[in-house]
């Protein structure tokens, strides 16, 4: 079990690479982002391991203060590159950001469950899926959302990139703090509530835009 994360990485990513030869362009792009998320998780595991040995912090302090910084930077890196090299549409950035987050959580959850195989339960799988899975998706989406500010104005680059990264790190830090405490259930519910709130806001935004275009058509 020494190289468990490497074994999991290979077993997950090799079928994905093979699938790349079959998929069309759109599916291929999504699959590549999923793979980038998985690879980011692998590297983060290694970097976190190295930093944990060097830094004079306990596990709780380390996972609250250091892990979120490392993981959010690693997850944001592919989105930054994608946004600046290919200049895709806002929708594509949002999608790719969420896919990277989900890819990240796939390897993380697999590792967590494989590493605790003696204490594993269906409840743990559900909790990991809804909690950590959504949390990674939401934080990466936040960074992707921030990057799109540059589409409105170039001067908003700092707000878009760095400020939203800070927000993502804080959110991740709160989640890690909660799940390790006796209020762990609150930690797992937090991403679900955030996700529902995001859906409601998105729905209201769409309704507003649709309503506006209908009223504009009626009253040109």
């Amino acid at each position, binding site marked *: 079990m020494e190289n468990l994360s490497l074994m999991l990485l290979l077993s997950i990513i090799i079928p994905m690479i093979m699938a790349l030869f079959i998929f069309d362009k759109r599916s291929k792009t999504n699959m590549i982002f999923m793979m980038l998320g998985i690879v980011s998780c692998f590297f983060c595991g290694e970097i976190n391991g190295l930093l944990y040995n060097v830094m004079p912090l306990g596990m709780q302090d380390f996972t*609250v*203060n*250091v892990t*979120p*910084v490392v993981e959010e930077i690693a997850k944001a890196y592919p989105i930054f590159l994608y946004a600046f090299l290919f200049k895709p549409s806002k929708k594509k950035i949002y999608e790719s950001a969420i896919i990277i987050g989900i890819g990240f959580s796939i390897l993380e959850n697999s590792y967590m469950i494989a590493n605790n195989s003696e204490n594993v339960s269906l409840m743990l799988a559900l909790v990991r899926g809804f909690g950590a899975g959504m949390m990674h998706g939401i934080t990466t989406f936040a960074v992707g959302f921030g990057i799109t*500010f540059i589409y*409105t*104005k170039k*001067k*908003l680059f*700092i*707000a878009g990139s*760095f*400020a*939203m990264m*800070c*927000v993502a*790190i*804080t*959110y991740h*830090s*709160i989640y890690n*703090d*909660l799940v*390790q*405490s006796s*209020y762990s259930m609150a930690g797992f519910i937090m991403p679900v509530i955030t996700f529902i709130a995001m859906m409601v*806001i998105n729905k*209201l*935004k769409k309704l*507003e*835009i649709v309503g*506006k275009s209908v009223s504009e058509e009626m009253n040109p």
Partner: protein
Amino acid sequence: MQDIIAEKLTGFDYVVMLFYFVGITAAFLIGIFKICTRRSPMYFKLIIYAVGCRALEALASFVDCICTGYVVYFRVSNLSLVAYSLFIISANVGALDKFLDEGSSKNLKARLLAFIAPVALSAIYAVFHVIAYNDVGAFSLLSLGFYIEFLPIPVGSYFCMKQLLMPPDSLGFLKATRYVNIFILVQLFIEELSNYSVLISGTATSVCAVLSVSSFFGIVFAVIKGEKIWKTLV
């Protein structure tokens, strides 16, 4: 040295922190549903995102306290304070400043007088730390907090003050953003002064929390009003 890094909390402190978090979150949610769910100018959206950052920071502080039982003066979630200031700076500089100040000499007076706000905030911050931590070692320990937490705040306050002091523009954008800038400045000063309340009593802390939450509501209502004025201009 441990006393400087961490401080034990009482039950009353938890109530104040919960009130602070719920208050700012309520203000943020009002802003989100009134501004961010429709097509609004970027300036107002960025101010609401800034309030959201403070709500997140308040949640992080509260969670940290209920999980550990003490308040730590520096932790990674303080980065959301940086995000708060960056959103204010971006709203004023990225979304607005270029329209209002093209670098001509007519705004020179406002540009210079605006330094009053950052200087005053820095003075309040420095004096508090000298009084509270009358120890060179403690001061150097807090320097990390200074660079991360405090440094973006005077920069943000400078632009708010500058826009308040500038002569009215022909398009009327300054009229739309005036109250937003006033409430942001009020909030920043309350925030800095509330540091002193820790030295006085628990009642002073709760009064500061009420004032701070009120200032956040003020920011959000000023944003809603400013957005309506802005839409009549464009």
